């Protein structure tokens, strides 16, 4: 008898959640800018995923006789100084940039949640110590630290991504801590404690699911910034090795031919711009919608 009642309650809770989600999607659909953002993301992600099937040439395929040709029907974005087809290289590069940016954001999110939860939940000395560490990471110029870590680990794309995780968690951890601090004082936490739930269980089963929304929004927003940071470091020489199809590095190559062959640097940059714009539009829309003051 009780178990069926229990089920009833659980189902209605889930339904409420579904309804909430449906409402969010409904609001999202009403904003043309968000739709545009979603289209940009879908197109670029598809371009990256299906690059092996769409790209007319391989990522490092060269036609030396056809170097530095302007955009044409045969080469949509023109060719670079070694005769690589820039359109194909851009498609292949999206795979690398988007994939690694996603890995960086997920990696940072894990670190942020762990540190923020521990600090916010235990409070006191643990909190104080962790926040001082966070202060240091915030005060240290993150790009410089990332460069130094990447240089120390050895210059390649994966180390660059790892270095961005190592240096990028501080701001997010602050955010998580703040959210946890405010959740911790709520009645349901006290109720769970009264029932005798263990600290870890309260943290990850009860508090975290309630705190996850703002974290996901900030992660979406940071994906755009991460792509920019990653490409920027790659541009000044960290990360991609010679000849690789990576957007920041391709712009760096185009820099030498900027005045006479501007398309070499222009198209990879434009690609970065549209990917990041897509994520920022959706992130902005999400933030507006999840803001309860605007909601009803």
């Amino acid at each position: 008898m009780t178990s069926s009642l229990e089920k009833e309650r659980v189902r209605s809770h889930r339904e409420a959640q579904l309804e909430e989600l449906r409402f969010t999607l409904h609001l999202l659909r009403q904003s043309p800018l968000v739709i545009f953002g979603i289209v940009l993301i879908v197109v670029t992600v598809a371009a990256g995923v299906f690059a092996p099937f769409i790209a007319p040439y391989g990522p490092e395929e060269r036609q030396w006789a056809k170097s530095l040709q302007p955009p044409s029907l045969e080469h949509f974005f023109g060719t670079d100084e070694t005769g690589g087809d820039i359109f194909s290289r851009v498609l292949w590069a999206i795979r690398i940039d988007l994939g690694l940016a996603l890995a960086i954001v997920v990696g940072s999110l894990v670190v942020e949640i762990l540190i923020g939860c521990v600090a916010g939940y235990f409070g006191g000395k643990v909190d104080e110590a962790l926040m001082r560490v966070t202060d240091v990471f915030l005060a240290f110029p993150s790009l410089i630290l990332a460069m130094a870590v990447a240089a120390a680990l050895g210059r390649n794309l994966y180390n660059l991504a790892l270095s961005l995780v190592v240096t990028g968690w501080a701001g997010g951890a602050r955010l998580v801590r703040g959210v946890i601090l405010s959740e911790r004082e709520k009645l349901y936490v006290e109720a769970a404690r009264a029932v005798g739930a263990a600290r870890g269980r309260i943290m990850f089963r009860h508090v975290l699911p309630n705190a996850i929304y703002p974290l996901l929004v900030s992660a979406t927003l940071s994906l755009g910034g991460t792509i920019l940071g990653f490409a920027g470091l790659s541009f000044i020489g960290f990360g991609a090795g010679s000849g690789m199809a990576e957007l920041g590095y391709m712009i760096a190559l185009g820099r030498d031919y900027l005045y006479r062959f501007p398309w070499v640097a222009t198209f990879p940059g434009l690609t970065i711009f549209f990917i990041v714009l897509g994520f920022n539009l959706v992130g902005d829309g999400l933030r507006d919608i999840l803001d309860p003051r605007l909601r009803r």
Partner: protein
Amino acid sequence: MKLRDYVVRRLILLVPVMFGVTLIAFTLSHVIGDPVAAYASERTPEWQIKQIILQKGLDKPIYIQYGIYVNDLVKGDWGYTRSVNDRPVTEVIKEFFPATFELTAMSLVMILVIAIPLGIVSATHKDKPVDHVTRLFALSGVSMPVFWLGLLMLLVFYYHFQMLGLPNLPSGARLDQFLYPPLKSITGFYLLDSLIQLRPDAFFDAFLHLIMPAFVLGYHGVTVVTRMMRSSMLEVMRQDYIMLARSKGLPERIVIYRHALKNAMIPTVTVVGLSFGSLLTGAPITETVFSWPGLGRWAAGAILRTDFSAISGFAIVSALVYVTANLIVDLLYAFIDPRIRLG
């Protein structure tokens, strides 16, 4: 709490932060990098290297090495940088700092001059064409790779304008090298130097050289501050006291600039302060694009050449600037909003 007590307390709180920063810098230069490299080159004979190791205590346990490192920092011995002819790091920082400071200050001015009016106009004309254009401008700023924007600006304002015989924006240096008579460097800040020496031509030239790099460095900050200004202005305009001011019959201009603006500035000041920190972080990339002879370009080059004493020097300087900027922001709060008690 008195202002002086507050400042003292904040300065004491800086100690653990700077301890952490030096610890990271130490780890980079002594654990990951080779500490001898800061004092030796490839041509240094073996016996001299041994001498350096003994002199600098590099054979001692690591915590003693850290003590020596901090002691040297305090005394002003920051090692030698391979990237600039093995010159002392402190000397190089002194030489490059004015260039970077002038650039970041100019960017900050651009942020204030462009972003705050844009944010106000955007908020007071919500959902009008001006608002849409502003939001688009802001959104593309956050989405654009700045180094790419820099290259595009070079292509248009430097190369194409020159090709067309139009007045173009110069790049690649801080002053025209054919400027005659050459500007004597007194403070290292060229805008200031030219004012002191009453050289309007040099001032104008230095200003022109600053425009593109400062805009590229500051563009991201401009967009962030515009968005912040817009949303906090909208928030304030919804308050009751604004309605009261309007119902008293005050002109809209006074309502906006006297009553709304001051309160809307509070969150904006935070963001401006934070963006000053990010300006320094962005300096390596922007300075590389424009070949700007500053700290950032030096640091980026140094890292590529694993010149760790340079990296540790740059990191410590930028951390110091960053925490100072934060302190100033917190003091500004109390100035703008008397309700905020320092403490």
